[in-house]
């Protein structure tokens, strides 16, 4: 099991996996909304592109889930980042479900449809809004609370600090 956890944490890559994988849904779903809006002028090409973007985002988001859960489980429960992580996770589940439904609504029509309106468009708008909120929370965990920061480079920095004459904690 440890090898699997280490794999999901990205130790083999020296880089956490979750923030890499999330680029895809994070880019695809807001882009799908943009394509939806552009369908007004560019017709079926944009309807199709939006469909592909939602589908690709869903596949990548499924891959991102286990890596995110592993990263989150490494945070101590009493830290503020734990709660942020929980909200981030719940919001992401909602967003993924919304886009799954969204995809289902389009699957039979995207080849011919020339404009995205109604429920699919509404789902894209709501999904994107929630996604931006959720992704912001994920970013806050890294840039405000330092989750995963200097986790894999700890030894390197310890050496630099040691050479710089710093007081150090026991190994």
């Amino acid at each position, binding site marked *: 099991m440890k090898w699997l956890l280490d794999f999901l944490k990205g130790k083999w890559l020296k880089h956490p996996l979750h923030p890499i994988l999330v680029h895809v849904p994070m880019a695809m779903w807001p882009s799908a909304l943009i394509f939806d809006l552009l369908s007004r002028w560019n017709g079926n090409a944009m309807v199709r592109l939006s469909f592909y973007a939602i589908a690709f985002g869903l596949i990548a988001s499924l891959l991102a889930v286990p890596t995110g859960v592993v990263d989150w489980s490494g945070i101590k429960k009493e830290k503020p980042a734990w709660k942020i992580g929980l909200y981030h996770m719940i919001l992401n589940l909602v967003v993924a479900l919304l886009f799954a439904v969204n995809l289902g609504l389009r699957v039979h029509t995207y080849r011919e449809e020339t404009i995205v309106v109604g429920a699919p468009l509404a789902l894209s708008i709501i999904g994107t809004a929630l996604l931006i909120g959720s992704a912001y929370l994920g970013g806050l965990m890294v840039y*405000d609370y330092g989750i995963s920061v200097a986790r894999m480079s700890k030894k390197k920095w310890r050496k630099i600090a040691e050479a710089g004459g710093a*007081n150090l904690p026991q190994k």
Partner: protein
Amino acid sequence: MLKDFLEGKPFRHPLHPMLVHFPIGLFILSLLLDLGSFAFRSTPNLVRDAFYAMLLGIIAALIAAVPGFVDYTDIRSDHPGKRTATAHLTLNLIVVGLYGINLGVRSSTLDAFKTPVGPLILSLVGIALLSVSGYLGGRLVYDDGIGVGRHKRRTSTPENTLHLTRGGNGEAVFVPVPEAESLRDRETLRVEIDGQVIAIAKLDGNFYAFQEFCTHRFGPLSEGDFEGFNVQCPWHNSCFDVRTGKVTNGPAKVDLKTFKVETHDGKICIGAPRATEKSS
């Protein structure tokens, strides 16, 4: 003000890592559509779709480049991550250049049933380089803490490290730091005196000197923020009293080394530590 905005200070989150999702995702989508045009011959217009995804990707990349460049100039010139950042920046410029060419080449074949070999190869090379570059960008954050906690800092950070020496006698002496004179409140210097790396801060008109490295994961305290006499590490928010070096808030558990600051002949001087035997 514009610099603060581009660094994402109003959002408590740097802008560049938010924006880069879009070029990365869209360029990958474009390649997938190219590959799809070979796999699904009966699906029309995939070549055109790939073109649009790429066009949006280039626009998004150009937007992301602006805060990225500001972030780059903000990295201390002798920071171990600076070279990684230079490679990241250079690779990204190459990638955008390649996609610009790619877009031009394929614009005349939008009605083709499958993507021509030339643009396809350009896309493959583009994604390969982008993967390396994106990886380096991630290493900058997760290894070197670039952009982490920077929004908490209210003043600019040191541009480089000042290298000073005690002279040859090896005794504990006071080393003048003339650059400290021009510090404003809550600004810092990063100083190295015979190997010892020290952060000097001006707080409420007085100077305080303490070890540069946080005792938790060794984050840069010369880039930390100050509240009263506390310095807060930008990485994981450990706090220390700069007068005593004591931990006032975790996760750090070990106190900082502090150094005396005295005025000798009207010059601000740091009490450089006695030379210790260099351990190899």
